């Protein structure tokens, strides 16, 4: 049976199509509409999924939405009632959206699907899965595990912001939930906001900033104490209680009560364009460490009440790869699987799976293998599709019959310090580019981090880059003994790779610290010697593997920088046209589009403008 999963109307809309237990296709709407975190109905993503399977809407057995709108509305009404008379402004603003759209999601889905084609609505039923059940299902069913504990943590679902579940015999049973307004995701987002980054998208910047904080410094410790004493009560079972006197999200349109926060931390709220000071880094470190403590408490408790040896993780907080690595290193669980599209986009997948196994009682046959197809579930384009784009723009290109020749040529160019736009195969599902829509470069270059951040991606200079390393060589460079195919764990760069640091390194402020050459692979070594690595497996991504292998043959180095193919504020490129336009508006040197290779210096296109403005995230 074909089941379509949909997530929409909050952030990161997506669609996913499964045929029985096989994932046929999945994609986020933002990739098609070119609006980052697009929340509109994923009509393009749905169309793509149906095309991929060559089926009509009427051939779907079910459509499953990733959460329960009535339950969310219930929470909304009850919480406004609870906090009244405060929150009137927020109530007046949010209720019309519910009355117009969100309460009638069933009708909305039918009417949107009618834009694709007409069908008999009586023959296709729409079902609703709970938000955290969708997350849990998205992590467990593709994991291949026979049984597991499941931990889901995010900003907010209907009532729950985190859940612990046990999966066995193909069924998921939610055992414990953390309810509104208490939320680890929202706590982290509150700091994201206070430190000048955009909520729901800047959280990973906060995570990247934290290592610049000075560990155990008086200021950092003081911040941690203040957070514990005033903002959040941390309990040993992993649950938390937010002190709502400091948070605004329940009664206003702001995350926090700014004046109270400023007074508490003795620090003004940082505006997005303000300089980042050491105090900001210390505060980022404080909340990161508190987050890790809470997550570890949750994990311990999940193990206690489930008795399981394997853990599945999902929800937006599971994108915090530093916290994930703390879980891994704690050895509380023997194995960990994290859904690569762990945010709300992955909810579409989980919704479809939860219907299949929990409603239709489809037999679950654990394979022990990851069923995510390495997250390569999106659109792919033929050489002919690409040629049409190149002709449209009158681009200068070279076509290679033999792809091994391309890998050899590009490996040589990376060694020469060139920056490459790499577009091959199916687009990734989830927030990470894993080698099919990537910008790649030499990790050995000391200048590369700065160059990539400022001239290619146009983003903050402190942001780290991830290495893509051949799976079997990962141990040579990093202290890691598992595969990390989805960039969801960090690992320390091996001591043998590190360089001697200046004596005052720990006391250095952000930018002087940033530009210290810390290892033989400086462009992917973060200031605390961590790296958010991706291990590349020959079986799941043979082309990307071959490229790195060729690079190794020339340089004896088995890794390269892998960052997403986009600029700041832009969704990762989806089509050859997106890739070509992004290539033309940045300082990338070479673009590879399947078997076509384009050199920037050979392009002389005056007829078209490639300038595009994206709202910085």
């Amino acid at each position, binding site marked *: 049976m074909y089941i379509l999963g949909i997530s929409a109307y909050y952030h990161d809309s997506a669609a996913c199509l499964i045929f029985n237990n096989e994932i046929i296709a999945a994609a986020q709407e933002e990739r098609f509409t070119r609006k980052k975190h697009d929340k509109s109905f994923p009509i393009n993503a749905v169309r793509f999924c149906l095309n991929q399977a060559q089926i009509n809407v009427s051939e779907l057995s079910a459509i499953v939405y990733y959460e329960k709108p009535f*339950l969310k509305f*219930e929470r909304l*009404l009850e919480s406004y*009632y609870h906090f009244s008379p405060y929150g009137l402004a927020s109530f007046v603003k949010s209720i019309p959206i519910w009355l*117009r759209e969100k*309460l009638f999601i*069933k009708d909305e889905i039918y009417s949107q699907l009618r834009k694709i084609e007409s069908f008999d609505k009586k023959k296709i039923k729409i079902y609703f899965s709970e938000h955290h059940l969708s997350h849990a299902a998205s992590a467990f069913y593709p994991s291949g595990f026979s049984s597991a504990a499941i931990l889901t943590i995010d900003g907010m679902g209907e009532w729950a912001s985190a859940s612990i579940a046990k999966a066995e015999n193909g069924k998921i049973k939610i055992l414990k939930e953390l309810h509104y307004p208490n939320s680890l995701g929202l706590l982290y987002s509150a700091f994201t906001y206070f430190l000048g980054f955009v909520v729901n998208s800047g959280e990973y910047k906060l995570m990247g900033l934290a290592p610049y904080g000075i560990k155990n410094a008086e200021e950092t410790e003081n911040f941690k104490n203040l957070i514990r004493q005033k903002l959040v009560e941390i309990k040993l079972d992993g649950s938390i209680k937010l002190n709502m006197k400091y948070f605004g999200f329940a009664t206003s349109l702001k995350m926090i009560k700014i004046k109270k926060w400023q007074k508490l931390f003795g620090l003004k709220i940082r505006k997005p364009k303000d300089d980042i000071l050491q105090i900001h880094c210390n505060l980022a470190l404080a909340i990161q460490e508190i987050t890790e403590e809470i997550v570890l408490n949750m994990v311990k408790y999940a193990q206690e009440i489930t008795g399981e040896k394997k853990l599945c993780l999902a929800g937006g907080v599971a994108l915090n790869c530093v916290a994930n690595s703390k879980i891994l290193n704690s050895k509380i669980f023997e194995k960990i699987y994290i859904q690569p599209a762990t945010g709300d986009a992955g909810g579409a997948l989980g919704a479809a799976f939860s219907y299949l196994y929990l409603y239709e009682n489809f037999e679950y046959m654990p394979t022990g293998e990851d069923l995510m197809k390495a997250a390569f579930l999106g659109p792919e384009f033929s050489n002919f599709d690409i040629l049409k784009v190149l002709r449209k723009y009158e681009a200068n290109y070279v076509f290679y019959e033999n792809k091994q020749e391309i890998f050899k040529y590009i490996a040589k160019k990376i060694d020469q310090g060139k920056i490459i736009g790499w577009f091959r195969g199916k687009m990734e599902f989830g927030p990470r580019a894993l080698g099919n829509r990537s910008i790649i470069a030499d990790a050995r270059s000391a200048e590369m981090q700065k160059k990539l951040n400022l001239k290619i991606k146009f983003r903050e200079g402190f942001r780290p880059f991830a290495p893509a390393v051949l799976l079997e060589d990962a141990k040579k460079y990093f202290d890691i003994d598992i595969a990390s195919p989805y960039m969801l764990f960090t690992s320390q760069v091996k001591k043998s790779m590190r360089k001697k640091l200046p004596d005052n390194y720990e006391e250095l402020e952000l930018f002087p610290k940033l530009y210290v050459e810390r290892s033989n692979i400086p462009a992917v070594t973060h200031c605390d010697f961590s790296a958010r690595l991706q291990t590349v497996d020959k079986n799941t991504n043979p082309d990307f593997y071959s490229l790195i292998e060729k690079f190794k043959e020339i340089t004896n180095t088995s890794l390269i920088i892998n960052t997403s193919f986009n600029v700041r504020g832009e969704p990762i490129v989806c089509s050859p046209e997106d890739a070509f336009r992004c290539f033309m508006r940045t300082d990338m040197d070479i673009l590879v589009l399947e078997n076509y290779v384009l050199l920037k210096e050979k392009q002389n296109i005056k007829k078209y403008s490639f300038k595009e403005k994206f709202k910085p995230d």
Partner: protein
Amino acid sequence: MEFLRDLWGFLKERKKYWLLPMIIVLLIIGILIIFAGSSSVAPFVYTLF
């Protein structure tokens, strides 16, 4: 109709009948606001609020 059936089923399952009056009032206001945008219901809405 299907919406009302679903809503009633939800309230029954959750045993939260006390939400019903609030939802009905909100829905009526919502419908009035939508109609008021372009129809003869507008003056009626103005006298109400």
